């Protein structure tokens, strides 16, 4: 490592640590939960580290979707800010990391185009975000001036008239080919049936998610030393958890057979090998925890609301994110300068935004606040 890149690494590490100190505290969350409107939450966040993305907006009357969009943009802004500190290799990794925003934009375009083919209203299933109306690259570029789409050709995307045009805006040829396959299925079917729509949207979303995590894990696997180990842990844990969750989701909600559910997972593997994933796929979806005994993930399926159907998935997702939170914290505390700190910080930020979105929805739809513990990734110390 050259002296220059060593300096950049330290600066990157210092920035990640400094930014971590700006994350919200439990007291801030409790204050947000006391608010009675989305505007109230926006006003409170306007006094925090989110002030920079909220500046220039009318906070008092802010809509839920707009606030959620801006909160998500804040993750991107934080990520982009690390570019100035990143050397060439780290910049590539960072760009790869931030490709999930390209993917969100693509997914939103898929939804819009597919929806326009469907006569009846179909609830969004895959990759749909409630803040989709705002997911316009132009708007993002206005808010985060240094942001550039790396996966998509923005000009082609903006002039896209059909779903095929959207896919043609993807720069990576192998990804484009993979995306074309579900599209061909859609085009051949020539139907506006909701079922077909769901299948296409689901497949396109899965191809993108698989591509994103596979590429990120492959890049992380190439790193050496502590940095490589930590990055593999950070990304690999997510890979494992997503593989498990996709098998669960496929089996439980999409009526997939165990074998079929195994075709939906990534090629990247961290701690769960194919044998273990196969056993998980063949187990009862809600009994997958038993298969995972002895692995770090054995408690993921320990869900209190197991008897209550609607809460089971909420708690399961929370457990997954809690696990990711713990891993990110662990990576952070390792104290070795390297890109893993940026990654860990971005994970923590992403999970904080997830919690904030949960709080916003809780306040907006007047959910019982005593159940907040079931949803939030962070454990509020004063919640009781």
């Amino acid at each position, binding site marked *: 490592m050259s002296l220059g890149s060593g300096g950049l690494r330290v600066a990157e590490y210092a920035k990640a640590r400094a930014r971590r100190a700006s994350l919200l505290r439990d007291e801030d969350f409790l204050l947000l939960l006391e608010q009675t409107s989305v505007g109230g939450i926006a006003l409170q966040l306007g006094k925090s580290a989110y002030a920079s993305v909220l500046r220039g907006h009318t906070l008092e009357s802010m809509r839920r979707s707009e606030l959620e969009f801006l909160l998500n943009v804040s993750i991107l802004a934080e990520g982009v800010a690390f570019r100035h500190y990143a050397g060439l290799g780290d910049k590539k990794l960072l760009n790869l990391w931030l490709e999930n925003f390209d993917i969100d934009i693509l997914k939103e375009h898929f939804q819009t185009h597919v929806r326009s083919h469907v006569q009846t209203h179909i609830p969004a299933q895959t990759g749909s975000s409630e803040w989709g109306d705002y997911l316009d690259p132009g708007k993002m570029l206005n808010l985060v001036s240094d942001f550039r789409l790396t996966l998509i050709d923005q000009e082609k995307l903006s*002039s896209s008239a059909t779903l095929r045009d959207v896919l043609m805006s993807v720069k990576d040829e*192998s990804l484009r080919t993979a995306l074309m396959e579900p599209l061909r*299925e859609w085009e051949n079917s020539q139907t506006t049936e909701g079922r077909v729509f769901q299948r296409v949207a689901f*497949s396109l979303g899965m191809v993108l998610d698989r591509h994103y995590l596979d590429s990120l894990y492959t890049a992380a696997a190439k790193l050496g030393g502590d940095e490589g180990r930590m990055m593999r842990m950070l990304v690999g844990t997510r890979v494992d958890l997503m593989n498990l969750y996709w098998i669960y989701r496929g089996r439980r909600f999409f009526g997939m057979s165990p*074998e*079929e559910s195994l075709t*939906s997972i990534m090629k990247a593997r961290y701690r769960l090998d194919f044998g273990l994933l*196969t056993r998980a796929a*063949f187990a009862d979806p809600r009994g997958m925890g038993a298969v995972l005994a002895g692995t770090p993930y054995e408690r993921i399926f320990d869900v209190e609301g197991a008897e209550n159907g609607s809460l089971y998935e909420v708690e399961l997702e929370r457990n997954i994110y809690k696990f990711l939170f713990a891993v990110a914290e662990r990576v952070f505390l390792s104290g070795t300068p390297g890109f893993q700190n940026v990654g860990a910080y971005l994970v923590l930020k992403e999970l904080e935004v997830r919690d904030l979105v949960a709080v916003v929805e809780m306040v907006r739809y007047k959910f019982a606040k005593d159940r907040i513990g079931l949803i939030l990734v962070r454990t509020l110390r004063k919640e009781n």
Partner: protein
Amino acid sequence: MAVVGMAGVSFIGPREEIENIALALLKMENFEPMSPEVIMDAHPLSSRFQTFRGNPYDALLEKLDELWLKAGLPVFQCRIVDRVPSASLPELEAKIDQVTKKIEEWSARTEELRREYERWRAMLAFGDAIRETGRSLTDLPSAFCESVTIGTLTRENWRRLREASLAAPILAMPLMDEGRSEADKVTVIVFYNSDYREEIQKIFSSVHMYLFPAEGVGYGQYDKRDAVSYRMEAIEAERESYRDMPGRYAAENRFELAKLYETVYAKQRIFSLCQMGGDLSEMTVLAGWMPRKSFGEVRAIAEEKAPHALVISEDGDALEREGNELPTLLHNLPLVRRFQEIVRLYSLPSYSEIDPTFVVAVSFCLFFGFMFGDVGHGAALILGTYFLEKKKMMGPAIGSVMRIAGSFSVLFGFLYGSVFGNEELIPPMWLSPMHDVNEILPVSIGIGILFLTIGICFKIWNTVHKREWGEVFFSPEGVAGLLFYWLAVGQAAAVFTVPGWALGTVFFAAVMAFLFMLMIFGNGAAKLLFHGETVDEGGVVHVFSVFHAMLNFVSNTASFVRLAAFALNHVGLSGAVFMLGQMVENAPGGKLYCALILLLGHLIIIGLEGMIVFIQTLRLEYYEFFGKFYRGGGRDFAPVAWKK
């Protein structure tokens, strides 16, 4: 040699006539449209102003581009049309649909044949595999045929299927696997139990496997290898003919297609310009900026092509004073124009600012030549620049600047009598930096004084243009500051050159003290004399900023000593290289080492010292010169053009 004066121009009239004007503007390439929001800013009629969404001709043009691509035709260069084509959008859509429908049919058939060909190829491979076991395809029982599927899928999906096959009661094997990338196709054969048929279909669907038609009747028809090969050849021949269809069609109808392309292209360009305006009560409005001198020509065209349209022009300077942000268009002599990049690298001048490019061009060459004056090194720099440009390692803009800088290096080399740092080869035409240090130092300071004076004059010009009279007369970079600077320079010069001149001569001291007080109390004086002009900084800050400006006069002037210092440095460094060469010359093989040292040393001087001098030159431009007057922040004039 200045920022070109602009005019704000608006065209209001019937749609057809505005389209005629739009065509003329596209030809002239000197009109930058304004966005409709700016046009109708807070106007009472803005609610009735309708803007155009999307350009319907974009999609048509894309379809034609696709046709061109499929037909293998070279990119079509549309000539500028004389008048707006009369064809309507539905007419053009119908024509293009007719063409694209044909192309789509051929494409579909080509794809169908490709799959057909792949199927036969797969069966050939399957037959070969069976024959290798000593059996034939006719031996296969029909029950077997019902439990076999052959199809293609991407390599990535093949990996997924293969993994799933480990957990499912199926046997999946590759028949043909030729590519390398994840997107390449693999042809596979899958065996399964007939009870598992429903389940396997789901797996095939989730890995997006294209299934060849089922062979319920058995595989006997593929048993004869020659017959299969013959069939494949026939399919390939048919496929080939379909693949050539778009090209043949395009060749047969090239005139009609070229005309169609030209029409759609013209419509697309005209619409895209009109799109920047909007409709107001059945009238189309188009507004934007153009160079003031071009307005007459546009008015004449409008009178001829759009007799019912209203053409309004407003003076750019007046609009700028009203708070509009005008684009900047620089106009300079061809050689000077290359130095616009140096100015642009710092920032483009804003519309109301003076364009410093000419001074930058002259001073850049002068400074570079002064610091790097050497016939040999200058020539090597020119050659090196040519080489880097040829290898595409240097852009043409910087390349031409470097070439000019190299030429001045050669010129100063003759003035200094220096060739590769050797001052003995040719006699100096002016002076030798190493031998005439006492002469070269005052010259460099003198250049600095002149340069800073120009900077302050530019600042005065800028502030006069903006009518900021307080700044003009009382600021340290105004008239008061300039007089103070020149008096200080005169004082310093007199001390060194006039015997017995006392530093504190009463007259000079009194005038300088007066000017200094004028700068300190400039804000108050400006308010008193020019009414209403306010300065937002506080009194204490202002006093400190005046002191800072005074110190800057000293430091900025002293900074030009570097001109002489680098000229000396150049000779010194070259001398050191020669000395090193001489040290090894008498050793065994010394001549070779000496040559290597000289070559390497001079390369380092050209590369490293050349770069440092380049940076020092930029520093003198950007810090010492621009710091006196330049704000920048201008926006490039971006006119619409016929070519997309």
